[in-house]
C-alpha cells in the first residue's frame, strides 16, 4: 500500500491509538494529561506528514486545525480525575473527525456517523452533569447519525439525508439542539473542541453532497439559515450562562455560512475559513468560560462581574477573543465573512440586510457578555478571583494567534484549486 493510500489511516489511527493507551492512565490524571497532549502533537505531525503526500490538499485547514485545537483545548486543563474521560473522548472525536475528513466516500461517511453516534453516547453518559434536559439534543444527534447511516447505505440518492446530517453538526436551526447540548453540557475541554470539530465535519459533509442537492432545497436552506441566524441571535441575548451565549452566538454566526452557500450554490475556501474561525473563536470563548467555571462554579452570568482589576490576564484575552468572535478585523471571522461577501460567486440580495442584523446582534450579546464579566462592580459570589495560570493563558493566547493567523493568512495557503478568501481589489478589464 502506498504512502498516499495509507495517509488517511495513519491520520485517524494516531489519536485512536492514543485514546486506547490513555485508558490505562485514567487513574493517573497528570500522566494522562501529558499523554493526551503528546498524542495530539503526534497527531498534528501525522496530519502534516499526510499533507506532504498531497492526497487531499483541499482539507488543509480542516485537518491541521483539528489536532491543533485538540491540543489547545487540552493545554489549560487542570489535572483532575473527573476530566480524564473527557480527554479520552477528545482523542476519540479527533480520530473520527479526522477520519471523516481524510477518507473519501463511504469510509468518511461511516466516520461521520460514528462521530455523531459517539456524541450521542457522550451526551447520554454525562446527562447527570447538566442542569437542563438533554433529550432534544440527544434526539437530534441520534437523528443525524441515522441520517448519515442511511446516506451510507443508499449512496448519492440520499444526499438530502446526508445534508441533514451535516446540519446537525454545522448547526442549522431547527437541527441545532445537538450542538447546543454538546457545547453547554459536556465536561472539561469537550465543549471547546466540539465547537470546532462539529462545524468542520458538518461543513465537509454538506460540501461533499452539495452538487446533489436541488435548487428548491437550497432555497429552503437559505430561508432556514436567515431565520435561524436571527432566531439564534435573539436567544443569545437572553441566555443566563456564558456557554449558552457562546453556543447560540455560534449558531447565529454559522447561519451566515449556510446562507452564503445556499445563496451561491457553491462552497469556497472563504466559507471554510469562516467556519474554522467561528469555531475557533467559540472554542476560545468556551475555554475562557471553563476557566471561570473552575473558579466560581456553574453560576449564572449575573453572579460574576467586575473581574478586570483582579484578573487582568483574563480581561485582555477575553476582550480580544470577543472581538475576534464578533467579527472584528483582522481576525479570521471578519476575513472569512468579507471573503464570502466579496467573492465573485456572491449574489447580492436584500437578505444581506438581515444577515447584517445578525452581525450587529453578535456585537450586542458578545459585548454585553464581556462587559458584564469584566467591568462594573466586582461580584463573584465567594469565588477565588485568581487570574489565569500560565497553561490557561497559553491556550487562550495561542487560540488568539490562530484566529489572527486565519485572518492574515495569504491566499496561497488555502486550497489552490478553489477561489481563495481573497478579494480582487481592482481588476484590469471589467465588464458590467
Amino acid at each position: 500500500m502506498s504512502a498516499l493510500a495509507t495517509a488517511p489511516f495513519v491520520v485517524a489511527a494516531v489519536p485512536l491509538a492514543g485514546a486506547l493507551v490513555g485508558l490505562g492512565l485514567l487513574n493517573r490524571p497528570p500522566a494522562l494529561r501529558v499523554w493526551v497532549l503528546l498524542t495530539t502533537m503526534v497527531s498534528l505531525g501525522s496530519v502534516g506528514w499526510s499533507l506532504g503526500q498531497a492526497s487531499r490538499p483541499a482539507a488543509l485547514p480542516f485537518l491541521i486545525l483539528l489536532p491543533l485545537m485538540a491540543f489547545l483545548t487540552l493545554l489549560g486543563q487542570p489535572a483532575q480525575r473527573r476530566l480524564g474521560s473527557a480527554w479520552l473522548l477528545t482523542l476519540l472525536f479527533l480520530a473520527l473527525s479526522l477520519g471523516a475528513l481524510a477518507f473519501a466516500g463511504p469510509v468518511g461517511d461511516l466516520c461521520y456517523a460514528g462521530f455523531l453516534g459517539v456524541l450521542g453516547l457522550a451526551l447520554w453518559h454525562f446527562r447527570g452533569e447538566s442542569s437542563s434536559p438533554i433529550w432534544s439534543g440527544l434526539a437530534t444527534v441520534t437523528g443525524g447519525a441515522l441520517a448519515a447511516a442511511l446516506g451510507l447505505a443508499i449512496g448519492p440518492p440520499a444526499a438530502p439525508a446526508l445534508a441533514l446530517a451535516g446540519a446537525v453538526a454545522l448547526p442549522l436551526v431547527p437541527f441545532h439542539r445537538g450542538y447546543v447540548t454538546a457545547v453547554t453540557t459536556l465536561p472539561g475541554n469537550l465543549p471547546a473542541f466540539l465547537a470546532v470539530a462539529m462545524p468542520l465535519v458538518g461543513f465537509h459533509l454538506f460540501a461533499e453532497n452539495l452538487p446533489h442537492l436541488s435548487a428548491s432545497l437550497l432555497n429552503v436552506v437559505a430561508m432556514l439559515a436567515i431565520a435561524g441566524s436571527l432566531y439564534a441571535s435573539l436567544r443569545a441575548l437572553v441566555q443566563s450562562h456564558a456557554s449558552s451565549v457562546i453556543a447560540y452566538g455560534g449558531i447565529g454566526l454559522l447561519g451566515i455560512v449556510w446562507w452564503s452557500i445556499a445563496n451561491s450554490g457553491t462552497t469556497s475556501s472563504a466559507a471554510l475559513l469562516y467556519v474554522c474561525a467561528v469555531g475557533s473563536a467559540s472554542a476560545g470563548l468556551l475555554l475562557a468560560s471553563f476557566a471561570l467555571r473552575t473558579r466560581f462554579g456553574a453560576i449564572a452570568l449575573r453572579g460574576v462581574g467586575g473581574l478586570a482589576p483582579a484578573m487582568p490576564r483574563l480581561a485582555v484575552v477575553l476582550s480580544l477573543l470577543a472581538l475576534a468572535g464578533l467579527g472584528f478585523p483582522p481576525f479570521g471571522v471578519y476575513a472569512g465573512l468579507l471573503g464570502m461577501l466579496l467573492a465573485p460567486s456572491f449574489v447580492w440580495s436584500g437578505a444581506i440586510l438581515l444577515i447584517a442584523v445578525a452581525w450587529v446582534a453578535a456585537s450586542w450579546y458578545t459585548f454585553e457578555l464581556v462587559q458584564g464579566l469584566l467591568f462594573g462592580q466586582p461580584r463573584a459570589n465567594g469565588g477565588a478571583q485568581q487570574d489565569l495560570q500560565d497553561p490557561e493563558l497559553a491556550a487562550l493566547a495561542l487560540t488568539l494567534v490562530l484566529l489572527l493567523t486565519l485572518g492574515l493568512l495569504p491566499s496561497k495557503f488555502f486550497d489552490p484549486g478553489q477561489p481563495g478568501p481573497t478579494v480582487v481589489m481592482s481588476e484590469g478589464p471589467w465588464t458590467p
Partner: protein
Amino acid sequence: MDIGALLAVLTPILPLLAALLVLSGDARTQLARAQAGLWPLVATFVAAGVVLAMVSSREPITLRFYDPSSAANPALPLGFHVDRLAAVMMVLVSGVAAIIYRYSVTYMFQDPGYRRFLALIAVTATVLLCMVSSANLVMLFIFWQMLSYVLSMLAHNLHHPATLDGASKTFLFHRLGDAAFLAGIVLAHSLYGTVEFHALFARAAEHPVTLAPLPGIEMSGPTAVTLLLFVGAMTKSAQFPLHVWLPSSLYAPTPVHALLHAGIINAGGFLINRLAPLYGLSPATLHVAFVVGTLTAILGASMMLTQNDIKKTLGFSTIGQMGYMIMECGLGAFALAVFHLIAHGIFKGTVFLNCGNVIHKARREPVFPPTQSPVEEAPFSRLAWTTGFFTTLVMPLVILLATHGVLQIPIIHAQGSVIFLFFIWVTSSQAILTLTRLRGIPSWKVSAAMLVTLLFVVFTYLFAAERFTAFLYPNREEVDAYFTAAALPGPLFDGLVGLVTLGIVIGWMYLYAETRGQVMRRPAWLESWYPPLYLLLVNRLYVDRCYAFLGRAILRVAERVERRAAPRVS
C-alpha cells in the same frame, strides 16, 4: 521607497511607539514614560506636516502592500493613499492627538486607568491616521470599525454604571453604522467589481446601473451605495436620529471628549469627502444628506439650549455643528465641510479641555445668585445696536453685490456661490448677534469688534475657504459638478434662502425689542407652544427613550422565544 512614502507609513506607526512606551515598565516610572510618549506624537505631527507640504506641491503619495491588479486578503489589504485631503486630516489628527495627550499626562495623573487611557489616545491616533490615509474602501472600513471599538474603550470607566451603559450604547450604535457600511462595500463590489477608490469612481461614472430595491422604487447604483455608506457616516458624525450615543458617552473623562469632538466625530465628513466623486454621482443621496444635516443642526442646537450641564451643552452643540457640516456636504460644498470640521474641531477641542477647569473652579468657588440686591439693568447702547444692524443686515448686501461685480460670481445662476455667500451672512450674523448682547458697553470698541468680526468672516469665507477649496479640489469643474449635483429645485432653494433670511431678520427684531425692554407681541397659540416644546427638547425629543423601548421590546421578544423554546427542567 521615497521619503514621502516613508513618512506616510511612519506617521501612523509613531503613535504606537507612544502606546508601547506608556504600557511597558512598572508604575514607579509611569510619569516619566508618559511624558516621553509625547515625543513620538510630536514627531507624528511634524511628519504629517512634512507630508502635507510634499503633497501640496506634487502628486499624491500612493503605497500599496498588495497587488491591486490581482487579489488581496480581505482582512488587511494594507495600502496608503495620501492626497491633500488625507494630508490635511493627518495634520489635524496628529496635532489634536499630541495636544490632548500632553494635557492628559497631567490631567489624568491620579486616575487608576492612567496608562490604559494614554495608550488608548495614542492608539486612536494611529487608527485615525490609518483611516484617513487608506488606499481602498476595505482598509478604510477596517479602521472605521477599529475606531468604533477604540471609542467605546475610551468611554469605559471600569466601575461607573452610567459610563458602562454609555460605552455599550456607543459601541452598538457604531456597529449599526458599520453594518450599513459593510453592506455598502458589498454592493459596490457587486456592481463595479472593485474596492479601489479611483477604479470605483471611474466605473460608477462610466457604467450607469439602475436598481429596484422594492417594487416600483428604482435608484441608481451610486445612490444605493452612497446611501448605505451614508448611514455609516451618520453614526460616526452623530446625525439625527443616530446621535444618541454622543450624549451617552459624556461621562467619559474630559480629554476623551476633546479627542472625540475634535477628531473622531469628523469621520463622517471625511468619508463623504473621500468618496466625493461617488456622492457627486448621486443627487438623491446629497439631498438626503442635506435634509439629515439640516434636521440635525436645528435639533442639535435646540436641544443644546435646554441642557443644564456644561458637557451636555457642548455635546449637543457638537451634534448641531456636525449637522451643519453634513448639510454643507449635502449642498455640494465638500471642501467647506472639511474647513468647517477643522475649525470646529480646534474650537471644540479647546473648549472641552478648558471645561474641566471650569467645572473644577465652579465646585471650589460656588457662586450663588444674589438674594437681595437686584442686578442693575444694563443700559441700551444705540451705538452698539446700530452697528450690529448695519453689519448684519446692510453690509452683507453691499458685499454680496460687490462680489458679484468684482469677483464675477454669478449669484443668480450658481447655487454653490450663493451657498458660500449665504454662509458668510449666517455666520457673521450669528457672531454679531452674540456681540450685541454686550449692550451694556456703549463703546466704539464693541462696534469695532463687530466690524472686525464681519470682515474676518467675509475674508475667511471668500478667500480662505475659497483657497482651501481650490487646494483640496484643484479641478474647478469638479467643484462645480458637485454643486450642480447637489442643486435643489430653484423654488425650493429660493424658499429656503428666504426662510433663513426671515429667521435672521425676526431674530434682530426680537433682540431689538428685548434690548429696549419691550415685549414683542406673540400670538397666543405661539406662546402655548413654548412649554411642550421645552419639554420635548429637554427630554431630547424622547429619542433615547424610543431606543430604550425598542431595546426592551427586543429583549421581551427574546425572553418569550426563550421561554417557549428552552427545554423545561423537570
